[in-house]
């Protein structure tokens, strides 16, 4: 029973830790499926987290924070679109630039506005997305196994957690069951064909990039308003890149993206849990090993040792109309 409880607790923190990855990963899915590489997920998420923390602190409402996060992250997405779609700049360079701008300006503005060393003020219950207790959770608590799983693992998360899992379905539905999704995927594979059909490549890609911005805003909000009580500087700590890794791991598909994010979240939860405790057979594993594991796994996958990840064909290439 003890093992069971531990397992459920680890899985519970797996869910918490994988949500920012999942939201950012779905964000990247929209952009990259439309042929715009985005390594600026990290920056957009960070800027979103800051906007959420700042707005929630000023207006005292978590929803205001969410709105601000989506706006700010959407603006950065538009900058990325302006550089890489309108001006056909290098998408990777643009993404790198956005990461730096976000990293620097969140600290500078945070310090100037709140004078707390780059943090935003600690938030009370109103400013946060608190835990939601699902119906009957308390009643079912004492039911062995199933009740406990329901109470501990499924119930008691922030609303953004449920939203993130719901978005996996929505993303799948939008991309694979709607006309917009079909065109979006087409523009990432063969923009010339889409153009020939009389559909604007530019407008389609801008819409895809805006979806990315909005979802990164949600990811940032989750970090600042659900996982923590306010913004802390550099709080994304590479999560945007892990999300990118998960996206490649999932071969640019929504449901596998969810499992990839859960896997990376699980590694993270395990690393926290196992800190300092010796394992059977191998003995003590340094915690840095677990921290590096998602990156190592991604490299191995990219090298084609676990199936081959083939990116959208037109990814990274600005579209130039024939003239």
């Amino acid at each position, binding site marked *: 029973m003890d093992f069971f409880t531990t397992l459920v607790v680890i899985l519970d923190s797996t869910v918490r830790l994988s949500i920012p990855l999942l939201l950012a990963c779905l964000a990247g899915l929209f952009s990259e499926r439309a042929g715009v590489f985005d*390594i600026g997920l990290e920056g957009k998420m960070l800027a979103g987290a800051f906007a959420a923390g700042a707005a929630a602190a000023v207006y005292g409402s978590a929803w205001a924070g969410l709105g601000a996060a989506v706006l700010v992250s959407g603006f950065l997405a538009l*900058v990325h679109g*302006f*550089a*890489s779609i309108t*001006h*056909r*700049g*290098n*998408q*990777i*360079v*643009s993404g*790198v*630039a*956005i*990461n*730096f*701008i*976000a*990293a*620097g*300006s969140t*600290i*500078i*503005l945070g*310090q*100037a506005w709140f004078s707390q060393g*780059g943090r935003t003020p600690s938030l009370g219950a109103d400013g946060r997305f608190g835990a939601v207790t699902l119906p009957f959770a308390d009643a079912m608590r004492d039911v062995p196994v199933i009740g406990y799983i329901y109470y501990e693992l499924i119930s008691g998360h922030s609303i953004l957690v449920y939203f993130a899992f719901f978005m996996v379905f929505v993303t799948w539905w939008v991309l694979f069951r709607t006309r917009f999704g079909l065109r979006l995927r087409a523009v990432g594979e063969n923009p010339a064909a889409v153009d020939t059909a009389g559909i604007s490549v530019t407008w389609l890609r801008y819409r895809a990039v805006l979806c990315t911005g909005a979802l990164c805003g949600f990811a940032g909000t989750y970090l600042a308003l659900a996982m923590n009580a306010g913004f802390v500087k550099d709080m994304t700590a*590479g999560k945007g*890149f892990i999300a*990118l*890794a998960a996206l*490649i791991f999932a071969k640019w598909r929504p449901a596998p993206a969810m499992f990839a994010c859960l896997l990376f979240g699980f590694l993270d939860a395990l690393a926290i849990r196992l800190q300092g405790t010796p394992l059977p057979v191998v003995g003590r594993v*340094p915690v*840095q*090993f677990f*921290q*590096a594991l998602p*990156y*190592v796994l*991604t*490299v191995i996958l*990219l*090298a*084609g040792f676990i199936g081959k990840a083939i*990116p959208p064909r037109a990814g990274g*290439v600005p579209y*130039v109309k024939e*003239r």
Partner: protein
Amino acid sequence: MSSPYAKLPAWADYGLIPLINLVVAFAVAGLVVLMVGENPFRAAAIMVEGAFGSGRNIAYTLYYSTSFIFTGLAVAVAFHGGLFNIGGEGQAYVGGLGVALVCLTFDSILPWWLTFPLAILGAAALGAGWAFIPAYLQARRGSHIVITTIMFNFIAASLMVYLLVGPLKPMGSMAPQTRTFLEGGQLPKLNWVMELFGFTVRSSPFNLSFVLALVCAFLVWLVIWRTRLGYEIRTQGHSPKAARYAGIGEARIVIITMMISGALAGMMALNPVMGDQARLQLDFVTGAGFVGIAVALMGRSHPAGIVPAAILFGMLYQGGAELAFEMPNISRDMIVIIQGLVILFAGALEHMFRPSIQALFASISPRSAGLAAAKREGA
């Protein structure tokens, strides 16, 4: 692919457009300063004063520039081969391990002028080695170099934390760093050079690796523009297809280019580790690997542009430190914003002002704006 841009006179291409991009980047940075509630012109004045106001300040500026020359060259060499090496940060970090291993082994038995060449080899070898794996994976297994080098930055960070809190830490010490190197593992300072010019410098970390950086800049120019290998690298970067038809081994060039790039990034570690701190510390790279991207873009991947661009960023680093002192609201992170804006305007948006400048040139002298295939980056 046909280029959508017409040709401009060379001075406009290499002087005017980068200058305009830079001015716009700084103007936007000025807006951020304004948002924080400070006067951007005063901030700029304090920065310039802080960077060049005294001999000590100049020495510090050049100390930071040294690191940026190395990392800027590293990114530039990769750019010439059509590769984007974002992994300078990790390669420099692991390069530091090479420096430290050499210094820890030889500092008590060899004088610095014998340790130095060995440390150069150590730094270059480990930096190149760290770049080799992503390069090999790109060349042979087709994995994207940008993603793998980012991953290798994180792996390098984990590896170095593991080494510095474990095996490399001296017994009985709490701080995650190696022991301090003896005389034989420290580079001589160059403060006397500043004193030749009549400045008084009491202490600064400005050291011999600056000279090495300049030598490297010259060597990069020599290799890229004056050797067969450089020609092959540039051909590969310009048009992989043409390179293939010309019988240039694609995989070989990718791997060699990345290893040169990694070696240059690795050598950056000589400056802080052997030149200043005389020990290997956590996070000694402090973003220099990423600054290299901005430096290479600003210097248009040419050593003659990279050295001044590196000095400009050295100035921003040193001046920024002084600025943080005068205006507490503007910490050193302002540099990160400027860096991002420079990358955005000089890199991703480099063609933004081109159409209007072309129109301007065409209206002044129609001949100079004749339609010809211009160079395209990133294609």
